[in-house]
């Protein structure tokens, strides 16, 4: 299955991926409205880590043996059998944060405003490829098979 691969050598830390991710996961899909008007405020599912000359964009790795899937007490996290993606059902999430406790990448985020929903990458289902990949200006995140 195709995954988002991280090439930290090429990341320039521009954070465009974060912006595109946030807008993609907003209700309006409009950048101004997403940042200024929506409540709860949409959250980017990407973390850009940066230190000195190194940076990279990190999003859910959609692990084959996903610890968050095992830890989820309500069944909100689930495996999409067709794509292998680890997705979650917002309605079933009670905000117990078991997923945050076990994710070794620390990539599952709390949406503090609506409190009860952990937001995570959904690989932009329905798009030809995730918007973070599509809009990365330097191919620091790519859409491909892991060797």
């Amino acid at each position: 299955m195709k995954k988002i691969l991280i090439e930290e050598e090429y990341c320039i830390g521009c954070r465009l991926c974060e912006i595109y991710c946030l807008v993609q996961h907003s209700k309006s899909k409009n950048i101004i409205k997403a940042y200024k008007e929506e409540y709860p405020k949409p959250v980017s599912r990407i973390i850009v880590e940066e230190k000195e000359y190194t940076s990279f964009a990190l999003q859910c790795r959609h692990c084959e043996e996903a610890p968050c899937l095992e830890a989820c007490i309500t069944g909100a996290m689930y495996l999409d059998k067709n794509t292998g993606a680890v997705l979650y059902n917002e309605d079933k999430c009670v905000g117990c944060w078991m997923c945050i406790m076990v994710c070794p990448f620390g990539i599952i985020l709390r949406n503090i405003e609506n409190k009860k929903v952990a937001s995570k990458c959904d690989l932009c289902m329905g798009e030809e490829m995730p918007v973070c990949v599509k809009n990365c200006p330097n191919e620091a995140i790519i859409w491909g098979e892991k060797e």
Partner: protein
Amino acid sequence: MNYIIIGNSASGVAAIEAIRKYDEKSQVTVISDESYTSYSRPLISYLLGKKVTPKMMPYREINFYKDNQVKLVLNSKITKLDLSKKEVVLMDKQKIHFNKLLIAVGGKPINLRIPGSELNGIFTFSKLDDVGEIERYIKTNKVKKAVVVGGGLIGLKTTEALIELKIKVTIVELADRILSSSLDKKASNIIEEALKKKDCKLITNNSIKKIKEKNNKTKEVILKNQKRISTDLIIVAIGVKPNMELVKNTPININKGILVDKFMQTNVKNVYAAGDCCEAKDLISMKSRPIAIWPVAVQQGKIAGFNMAGVKREYQGSFIMNSIELCTIPIISVGESCSDKDDCQILEHFDCKKTIYKKVVLKNNKIIGGIFVNNIERAGLYTGLIRNKIDILNFKEHLLEEEFGLINLPKFYRKNIL
């Protein structure tokens, strides 16, 4: 091939999914003494406190058993486990034969054994049925006050639910603080203060000696120090132990829980065990012990299922960890979070204004435990470092920084996991 799974919670469901990944044809029978399809057990306190509706309780989709072609035998107690004949005998004398058996019967709440503990209005809280029973009791007796015995996870989640129902709660805890097995004094203090603000009373370093009936409705709880508390309802949450009733008088080896090998198989061939009823390899102490938490139950059920279906997989082990939100304060504790032995080093960050507390416990330059209160973001990074036993010497000073992330880790480790 006939598979029988006894128990229909985390381990049982994980085993069904694992078996069906590799074996679509064989008969899978699930036997449960409860009358429900699989539900989210940790949510029972949310249901009691009306934070969720009954609609939220199912752990899997409605068609789960049908889609996986599972024969469900609900509301059925097993009276005998006949390992030589390879069959289980049900309450109604029905016998079911198996080729492979999984025992995933979970834990059993420990009951009070003191004078008066047989009175009515005293409940343990571990099953969906308990919600209904407690709700009914509260309604018929117009309960206004409750005593919760035990300030552990279940005790506190129940307390929170009762507070939601406008019941005044007094917690009686044996240790000097609540959540004493996973939180240190600083962390538990944050929660204790929040509970007090909700008008919840907390009595520590104490235990219940006797329960006396005052009148039909009201009881009197007498503590070790002779203090008396009048109450309408008592919830007993003094712990859970592995349920080993079924394996008693069988050749299956037990210790504190059912003993299994790394394939989750007991000493009896083709008989497996998983979840809260059995022991697991603790990756920190490297010893076998019961680790009664949801993720471990799922992992073990899955591994058992794979091996039952003939796909060899080893259980890697785990360690204790918990995530809980109390009085809107999120708390995560992992591993040996309270260890203060001489060979341990503690790093901590405490912001008493914002009630933020972060702590990691180190031993031989490896993390063995951690506590995160109110700032739980990225707590899983530490869980990963514990699990993979990563040497932290080179980035120790960054461990508790706000911006700590994968970027601080050795490049080989980062590249390897990403």
